[in-house]
Each structure stands twice: as C-alpha cells, then as structure tokens.
C-alpha cells in the first residue's frame, strides 16, 4: 500500500465520518488507529458499506479481483487506501 504517500486531513476526516456513520456513532468517537472490528465493533457487512461509500465519495473503481483488503482495519489505513486509489487515477 502507499505508506510513503501523504494522506491529507481532508481524507482522514471524510473517512472517519463515513466509518462513524457505518458504526452509528459520532465521528469524534472513532479513533484514527483503533481497530474498527475489535475496538469499535464493526461487522463484516459494515466494512462493505464503508468501502461502497468510499468508492462513491472519492470516485474510484471497483478493487481488482483477488485484491486482499482484509488488512485494512483502521481509519488511517482506509485513508491510505483511498489516497492510493485516488492518486493512481490522477495523471501526473
């Protein structure tokens, strides 16, 4: 993943907002580095809805078949995923 890329506060805030909606809590209650499943109680359907909202919000296409996303478990990791997907879509 794009660990070397700078994730903006704007992306972090929007991802946290989307995660909070899926968790039915306020954004302030969702930590950037907390495990969404173990620390926040997200279920397997919830993470799908988060990815759908991210795709709609940031406008990137379906992940490639076979791409393993199971390691993406925090807001910060999701933000890095978003940054990577949007960065590769923008011509340099």
């Amino acid at each position, binding site marked *: 993943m794009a660990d070397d890329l700078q994730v903006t506060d704007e992306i972090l805030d929007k991802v946290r907002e989307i995660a909070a909606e899926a968790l039915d809590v306020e954004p302030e209650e969702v930590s950037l580095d907390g495990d969404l499943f173990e620390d926040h109680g997200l279920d*397997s*359907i*919830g993470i*799908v*809805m988060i*990815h*759908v*909202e991210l*795709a*709609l919000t940031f406008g990137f*296409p*379906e*992940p490639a*078949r076979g791409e*393993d*996303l*199971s390691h993406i478990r925090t807001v910060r990791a999701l933000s890095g995923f978003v940054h990577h997907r949007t960065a590769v879509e923008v011509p340099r």
Partner: protein
Amino acid sequence: MTPEAALAALPFGAAFRFVDQVISCDGAGRVVTATHYDTDRKVIAAHASLGSLIPGSILIEQAAQTALLLALIRGDAAPDRLGVVGAIKARFERPVTAPAELWCELTVAYLQAPQLGFAAEISLDGKVITRVSGACTLEMPGAPP
C-alpha cells in the same frame, strides 16, 4: 453465465421478480436492467389509493435483484447458494407511478468474496428517481458447500 440464464436463476417467482430484462452488461462490474411496472401488477394495484405509486421498498428490491443478477453473470455467485442483502442505503429523489419502465444502472463498488458492495441508480426516462447502495453476502448462511 449469460444474462438470460442469470435471469432464469433468480430465486423468485414471477410475483416477486423485479428485473425483466438486461439492457447491457459489460461483464466487468456494470449492468443496466429494465423493469416494467403495470397498474395491474398486484403490488402496484395494492397501492391504487396512492395513485399507483411504485413503493420505495420495491425499488430497493429491484436494485438488490440487479446486484444478484450481476453476481450470477460474473460468476461471483452460484445459483444454488444465492445470498442475501445485509445492509441497504437508499435516497428517493422523486415519487414515480405506474405504468412505468424503470432502468437500474448498477456498478460493483467492492468485492471480497463472498461479500459484494454495490451502488445503483434507478431512473425513469433518463432521470434518476432513486439511489441505492448496499452490501450483501453472496452465500446464503447455512448453504451446503
């Protein structure tokens, strides 16, 4: 699976099937379906007092069945183990009444087998009337392997 075979594989009887036709399918994650709602269709006739309003729950079902159809065409779902929708988010832009032919354009937004996420727009004459996003598990819980 061909679109025709996928339509035949939907596990619903005619009374509860809300996809009539596949208009287009690129095989990569986008499908457009059409559904015709007549005033004499039972679920519409039951809403005659509301001017043959097409219920929002039926529009959601049209989107969910379109998602299942796409999963069948792509081979992400098996006809004998079809899954169920786990979460739905819908926004109704405007009411629509029968008779009407509604198109559903759906794209896959997430796929980590056996789970699929989708986003759909249901439109009438090119104008979007409902936006639906959802998540489903493509295998029915307890289905034999």
